Every structure is written in C-alpha cells, then in structure tokens.
C-alpha cells in the first residue's frame, strides 16, 4: 500500500518497472528497495527459516539484521531492504540458507 497524501513529504518515484516475485509479475518503481516494492504490493513474507520453516519478513530495514534475505536473479542471501529494484528482476522467496554457487 502506497501513501497517497502526506502533510510534509512528497515522494519522488522513479520510472515504473516490472519484476517478478515467485513467478508472479509485479510493478514497482526503479530505485526503491525490493522490500518497499513488495510491501507496496502487500507482500510481507520474504523467507522461510532453515530449521522450523517459519515465515520471515522485514525487521530492521537498514541492511543490518538479515531477516529479509531473498533470492534475487538467482543469487541467494540478498538483503532486499537495501537492494534497489531494477526492471526485470527475478525475486524469489528464500528457503533456508540458499545455495552458494
């Protein structure tokens, strides 16, 4: 959900881009974080924990806590709270630790 009106802030968005989340096509703005684009689309579950398979989402949102690691363009453990969105990105829910190539 995006904020439509704000008393102090004006949100300058980049160009609209398309990306996929677990195969589903979504839209976001270039330059915002992947996490912000997913939240705008109402998606908050980003990862599944390794042992208990618990859903995990955003916690610190400043690249510190590793709660929001996802697989982006095939690369696991991407902190989507600081990774900027680009056209055509393939974003997937990460299960466990991910496979390092």
């Amino acid at each position, binding site marked *: 959900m995006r904020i439509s009106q704000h008393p102090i802030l004006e949100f300058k968005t980049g160009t609209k881009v398309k990306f996929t989340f677990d195969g589903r096509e979504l839209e976001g703005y270039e330059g915002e974080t992947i996490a912000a684009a997913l939240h705008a689309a109402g998606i908050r579950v980003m990862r599944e924990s390794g042992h208990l398979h618990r*859903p995990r989402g955003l916690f*610190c949102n400043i690249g510190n806590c590793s709660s929001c690691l996802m697989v982006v363009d095939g690369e696991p453990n991407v902190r989507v709270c600081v990774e900027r969105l680009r056209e055509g990105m393939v974003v997937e829910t990460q299960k466990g630790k991910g496979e390092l190539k």
Partner: protein
Amino acid sequence: MKHTEIAIVGGGPAGLAAALNAAKLGARVHLIDRNDYLGGQLIKQTHRFFGSKEQRASERGIDIARELANQVTASKNIQVMTEATALGYYEDGVLLVEQHKKIFAIKPERLIIATGGAEKTLLFPNNDLPGVYGAGAVQTLVNVFGVKPGKRVLMVGAGNIGVIVSYQLLQAGVEVAAIIEAAPRIGAYWVHASKVVRAGVPIYTRHTIQRAHGHREVTGATVVQLDENWQPVPGTEKEFDVDVICLSVGLTPLTELLWQAGCRMVFVPELGGNVPLRNEHLETSVPGIYVAGDVAGIEEASAAMMEGALAGLNAAASLGYTTESLGLDRRNILAQLEGLRSGPVGEKIRKGLAQALL
C-alpha cells in the same frame, strides 16, 4: 594499499560531522559508508529537532542530512566511498573495505568509528512473524519510500522513537491502535506524546506484549498489564486486532569493528549495551582510534553530530593540524554537549557516560 590520514567508518550524523571538521583543519579524509547514500538514519527523520540553534533545533533530520552530505561531497579533502562496507580492522592498522565486489586495503593514520546503532528486539511468542518490525524500520518504509507497513499498528515502547514514529504513521494515514509501555511512565518528551494522545491514540503504561498472533503474518496481539514487580497481572489481557507490531525498545551500539580492533569495552545499560571506553578526546583504549555517535552510547542525532565534530577536530589535531580557533571550537562543542545532556532528560546519559571514561 591506499593511505589516508583519517578514515571514518559510517556516514551518518556523527561520521559526516567528523569528516567536515577534520577536513576543515586540513586533514585528508576517507569517509566510508555501506549504503548508497550519505546521512545514515537522518534521512527518515521528518520531525523537528530539539535543542538550541547551534544544535540545529527546529530543523528536520532529512534536511540536515542533505545539507551535510552536500558539504561533504563539495569538500576536496574528503574522499567519499559509498556502497563500501568496512569488513575488518587488523593488527597492522589496515582497514579492509569491500566496494562493488572489490576489496580495498586502506591504511589510515587515524580511524574514527561512527557505525551507529541497531534496534533491539523483544522476547515474546511469534516475535519472528512478518509484521513485527523495528519502529525505525517502519519509519524508513513510510518516510523514505512512501509505503505503508500495514493497516493498523500496535506500538511497543513509549520512548521518543515509539511516540514520534506513531505520529508519523498517523501522518501517513496508518491507524495506530495503541502505544504500550512497560515502565510506569513514558520516556518520550511530552510535546510529542501529547500530539499522539490528542489524535486519539491511547498510551498504556505498565503494559507489555504477551504474544503476537498469526500463522503466516501478524493478525493480532495480546497485551497484558504489569504489576509493580513487572509481572503480568492475570485477567488483564487485552486483544488488539492489528497487522503490524512495531518494537521501539531501544537501540544497541554496532561495535563489531571496535571489538575486533581490541578496544576495551564495558557493558553500560544506560548507553544501550557494550560500549568502548574512551577519554575526553573520544579516543578509545587503542591509540588513534576514535568513536562518535551511537556506537559510543545510544543518544540523539544532535549529540552524535557534536561528538562527530569533536572526534574530527581531535583526530586532525593529533596529526598536527590546527587553527587559531581550535581551542575555542572544542570548548564550544563540549559546552553544547553538556547542555544537551543537562537536566532530568540527560540523567541517564550522564550516568552512563561516567562509567565509560578511560
């Protein structure tokens, strides 16, 4: 290997002020930040600061960040490295930095660590569910990206951050169901608290969160009253129909580099956890390593800027740089810091800092 006179790790309020003040004396500075922008957490602070004019009172963090970053970028003595993560500091005085998948070894004559802090979490069942956020995380989402975290929020913690972020959520059109606080009194300034109360948000003191509800995401929370011994009072449970739980339960210094560098550390709850011992010049037990801002003890951004300025001047002065007004400038900053930390509001900080002096 790159050589520099002063390396500064962290481009938030402390690091920016340190860079500007060191550069002003003539020192050559490398400013290193892992983000792709400068300003640290100032960039999400839309409220007006307190203090006096020298401490930029009544200005908003976002505007201060922009101005300081512009000054830093314009300074020919400062080389800025963004998207650059300081990976480690080694016995031979080498700082390893990763930038754009390349590793750089930097050998600075002085090092200022201004890495800031991180939000703490709280123990309760289901605290790992998506929908449980740090309050600062939600502040970033809302104020930087213009995106809502959900529809209805329970704020845990009535310190300044909890109350200010609650107000900013209201400004963004997000409902705040309540603010709860385990202590018998709120920690926030009354001017902020009265704004949210006037907007209709109840503040429950002596209340804590018992558990979050939900399967895949947060769908609610149970809140319970605490007695004088901080124990839950049976029968006082309240259910909140919320899809967001914000934890505003304090921050802790990001001290990894300090530990690795062998700085002597001390656990000071009043300062947020383990902090480096430091002298009045903000130099740690390892000669040549200085600290400034939240990494030295959790405080406000205004104090971080003052400490950064002081650390920048001191590090440059220790390399032989000076100006006619150096002594006066330093005394002026110290007096301002003392002012910020005066009175009942600064009591906790004063008590904490007294335990962290070398």
